[in-house]
């Protein structure tokens, strides 16, 4: 059953990711990316990361992608310039590079897989719950958490300053 869920949503994620790259219209790309994020969220649930999966749907597939769609609608989605004749050399650049990267990643993963066969599971996992996550976040990672709030503040100010009309 778990295998089935993994292969189903994993293949949906890969197909949606391919659609993001291949679609000419940026609106369709954004919609495919939402599908991809949602199926990745299911895989997060499968990895016992319940809180992360929830905020994946709420923040990523919800907030960030709505922001993307706003901008896609704001700028002209017809101004797409994916022409094979003008950028044909990029495909020939991308394929060897990504094949090389894939080989390196495969090598790393296979060298990891030798030392580890199946994940260690002591008890019924509760590490993905909000309770457990919050206890670690607000004790060991309190300073990074506070720094992150400053980062968000700076990002909000930066977005406002950048898009402010001066005239």
């Amino acid at each position, binding site marked *: 059953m778990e*295998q089935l869920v993994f292969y189903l949503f994993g293949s949906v994620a*890969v197909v949606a990711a391919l659609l993001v790259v291949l679609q000419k219209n940026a609106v369709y*790309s*954004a919609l495919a990316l939402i599908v991809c994020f949602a199926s990745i969220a299911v895989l997060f649930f499968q990895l016992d990361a319940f809180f992360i999966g929830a905020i994946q749907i709420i923040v990523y597939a919800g907030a960030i992608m709505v922001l993307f769609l706003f*901008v896609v609608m704001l*700028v002209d989605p017809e101004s797409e310039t994916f022409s094979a004749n003008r950028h044909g050399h990029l495909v020939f650049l991308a394929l060897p590079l990504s094949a090389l990267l894939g080989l390196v990643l495969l090598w790393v993963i296979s060298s990891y897989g030798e030392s580890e066969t*199946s994940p260690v599971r002591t008890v019924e996992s509760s590490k993905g719950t909000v309770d457990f996550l919050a206890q670690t*976040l607000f004790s060991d990672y309190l300073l990074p958490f506070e720094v992150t709030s400053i980062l968000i503040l700076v990002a909000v100010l930066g977005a406002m300053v950048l898009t402010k009309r001066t005239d």
Partner: protein
Amino acid sequence: MVSTTHFLVLGAVLFIIGVIGVIVRRNMITMFMCIELMLNAVNLTLLAFARSFDQVDGQIFVFFVMTVAAAEAAIGLALIVLLFRRTGQVDIDKADTMKW
């Protein structure tokens, strides 16, 4: 129970698709979406290792990655809007004013 290696391979595949998208596409918004896709592939890998080692730290990292990605999306989209307002398009090849 799905093994960690499965998730690692899936994360690698999604990351590579994102890399191809960034290289091939010239629309700035689509390139930005591919960067978000790469971030999510890394998140998947982090969570797979978090389960593998039975530690919660990986999930905290993913939490911070998501926060930084949200901030990055806000700034990046503001830059895209700014570029569109100035030049009337979002083609990254046309934004070559500083290219010598």
